[in-house]
């Protein structure tokens, strides 16, 4: 193997080998789409059979059917059952506490959480985590992370252009997810938003006294990293849900340097 082939293989491996995704919903959508296609195919077959029946009837009137020998072979052949495969541990529907725990785990090191709360209803596919934070630079901010259903394929939202808009642009997150990042002046401060439409995560950071982006508790890159974190969303791991239960304990304060979820954090896949 020459050096170029080795380089390409290595780059492929480095780029995608560790990536994961929500297999459960992808498979569920794939099978429901398949069922729809099957129904459509049955309808077409039904139409074709009706047409064939009419043809047979017409031909039958004139003499013997030319289809008689073929119709007997149309049934599907039985095949041996598929090999049994093991099922990877799936992501599970997130709870409000689970989302809080996932967000706290995704914060950059040395970020202090002064207070936190959560709202929304997982059954209605919208949950939010609200945190008052002090960033590594000492600036205060309020972080609202909303997990909701991702927008379906082919739909997109554009940037509004209000007078207080500082910037709004399409961005490509490091995971490959597209998002909108926007910043507004807001009551004398700055409000920064990252909307990962197709991942179903919207994050807003409000910094009441900030005069510039440098005075935000978390810089845009940190917000983007939370947005594309695989455990932040309507689905997360059981471990995050368990960890989230501790948030309900009176007086509980999340650790200042959070544990960053690594590959062994229980994300489904290989």
């Amino acid at each position, binding site marked *: 193997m020459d050096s170029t082939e080795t380089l390409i293989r290595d780059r492929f491996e480095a780029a995608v*080998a560790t990536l994961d995704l929500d297999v459960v919903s992808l498979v569920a959508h794939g099978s429901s789409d398949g069922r729809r296609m099957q129904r459509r195919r049955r309808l077409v077959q039904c139409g074709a059979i009706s047409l064939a029946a009419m043809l047979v009837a017409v031909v039958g009137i004139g003499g013997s059917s030319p289809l008689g020998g073929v119709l007997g072979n149309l049934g599907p052949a039985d*095949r041996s059952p598929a090999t049994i495969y093991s099922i990877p541990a799936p992501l599970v529907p997130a709870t409000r506490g689970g989302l809080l725990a996932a967000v706290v785990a995704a914060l950059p090191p040395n970020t202090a959480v002064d207070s936190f709360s959560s709202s929304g209803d997982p059954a209605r596919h919208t949950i939010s985590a609200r945190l008052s934070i002090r960033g590594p630079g000492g600036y205060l901010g309020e972080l609202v992370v909303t997990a909701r259903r991702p927008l379906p394929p082919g739909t997109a939202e554009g940037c509004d252009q209000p007078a207080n808009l500082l910037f709004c642009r*399409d961005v490509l997150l490091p995971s490959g997810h597209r998002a909108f990042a926007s910043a507004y002046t807001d009551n004398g401060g700055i409000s920064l938003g990252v909307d990962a439409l197709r991942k179903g995560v919207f994050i807003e950071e409000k910094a009441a006294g900030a005069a510039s982006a440098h005075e935000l508790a978390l810089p845009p890159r940190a917000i983007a990293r939370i947005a594309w974190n695989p455990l932040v969303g309507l689905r997360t791991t059981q471990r995050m849900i368990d960890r989230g239960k501790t948030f309900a304990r009176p007086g509980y304060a999340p650790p200042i340097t959070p544990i960053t979820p690594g590959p062994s954090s229980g994300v489904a896949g290989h």
Partner: protein
Amino acid sequence: VRHSQHAGEFTEFASVVAPRLFRSALLLCGDWQLAEDLVQIALAKLFLAWRRVSGADSPEAYAHGVLTKTFLSHKRVRRNAETPAADVTEAIGTNDDETAAARIDLFVALARLDKIDRAIVVLRYWEDASVAETARRLGMSEGAVRTRSSRALPKLRAALAPAEEAR
């Protein structure tokens, strides 16, 4: 009963192959959402043909074949508001994430190849398909696969060179 048994078998199979299909799809198209869409379309086709798929010598190879064909025949839906620009990743910041930066460099480099060349490179060097297997899956001659592969690799290497030097 048989229908639900087939659905169960399919779900089991799809749960295992979907991540691998997704990684191939991402290399083929360089777009997370489109990769998910391609996998979903491929899974729907596999569901429809499950009897044939489950009876194949290698159901997973069959699944990858369906994915490749789905990618080659896919026509992108025009999205009026999504126009990712080259500089935005820098704006959002990936300098501290070596893997993410390398991934984006690779996607940009792969995007410079045409669809068939990309499919050949991904099949040969990610899925480890032989020249014969690649030719069979893409419906072309082995000679054409060799020729296109030998032209695509230096192009890809050249496209990756600036990123390699910066590393």
